[in-house]
């Protein structure tokens, strides 16, 4: 799996932003992961913890928020969330919740977004 390169890119992005803002410590990090990405949140957190040893990110709290899947149906013009059932989360890409058709476009749920950080800095 490619969590390692993703985690690596995230750490770089976060440290860059922290430096730009003269952070002395990073308290919290929020990351959004689309439900349809092939990323495993638990593995991601583990890797982030390993990669951030001895950096400003060490000991910061990592929050991962899942972005739900949204679709646009090409048959009935339905736009929005799919009602997704965790036990079977793949089926949502198959069917529109309104008309049941399968011809649709996924408009959200594939992100991997470093959203924000909470930092400590001197006045």
């Amino acid at each position, binding site marked *: *799996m*490619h969590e*390692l*390169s*993703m985690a690596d*890119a*995230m750490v770089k*992005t*976060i440290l860059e*932003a*922290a430096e730009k*803002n003269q*952070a*002395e410590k990073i*308290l919290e990090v929020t990351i959004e992961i689309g439900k*349809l*990405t*092939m*990323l495993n949140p638990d593995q991601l957190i583990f890797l982030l913890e390993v990669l951030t040893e001895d950096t400003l990110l060490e000991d910061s709290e990592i929050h991962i928020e899942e972005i739900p899947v949204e679709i646009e149906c090409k048959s009935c013009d339905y736009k929005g969330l799919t009602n997704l059932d965790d036990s079977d989360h*793949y089926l949502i*890409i*198959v069917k529109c919740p309104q008309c049941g058709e*399968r*011809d649709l476009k*996924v408009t959200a749920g*594939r*992100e*991997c*977004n*470093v*959203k*924000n*950080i*909470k*930092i*400590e*800095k*001197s*006045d």
Partner: protein
Amino acid sequence: MHKIAEVEIQHDIMLANKKLAKRNQRILDKSDVFAVDVLGAIGSGKTSLIESLIKKMNVKIGVIAGDVISKFDANRFEQYEVPVVGLNTGKECHLDAHLVEHALEDLPLEKIDLLFIENVGNLICPVDFDLGSHIRMVVVSVSEGDDTVEKHPLIFKDADLVVINKVDIAEAVDADDEKMVSDARMLNPDAIVIKSSLKTGKGVDEIINVIENFMNK
């Protein structure tokens, strides 16, 4: 004194790859190269299919061959005297747009009409990474089991062309190739699904037709 501040970042890690992929496509378009992503499970027949296409198609073909550590596939293509760049992904389980960008630098694009980019054999990891190619071809074979398609819906959702390969041995491995075809159609009504055997040559002409149609679009 210390103060606490919230810093908005809003940086999509996937976006960097998407941007690079778009740039790759612009580079390809400038040289009139049509690029086909070739994805699929390990050993499904990706290299064999590209070899058949090199032998049968009347266009100038080039290949980028991604592999985890070896250059085996790249060496196979070199026999046909087509331009080839082998990419070792090392620990990674997929190609990304950045790797492909470097491969494009090493290819004589002006001498290529059709470029195949063979990804690492994997039905999961490559899904999130556009490379800049014009169409995605997914190759699976009956020997992976006839539930392979339904187990990996996302890769089929993004495919333009799905090849169900090794139908010559379907019976021997007790696999229902028609089920694989209908699963792929169910997951992606827009994709073209073709059954093939690279041993007997079945389906190859059909695949060529489809690729040529996409090229002329």
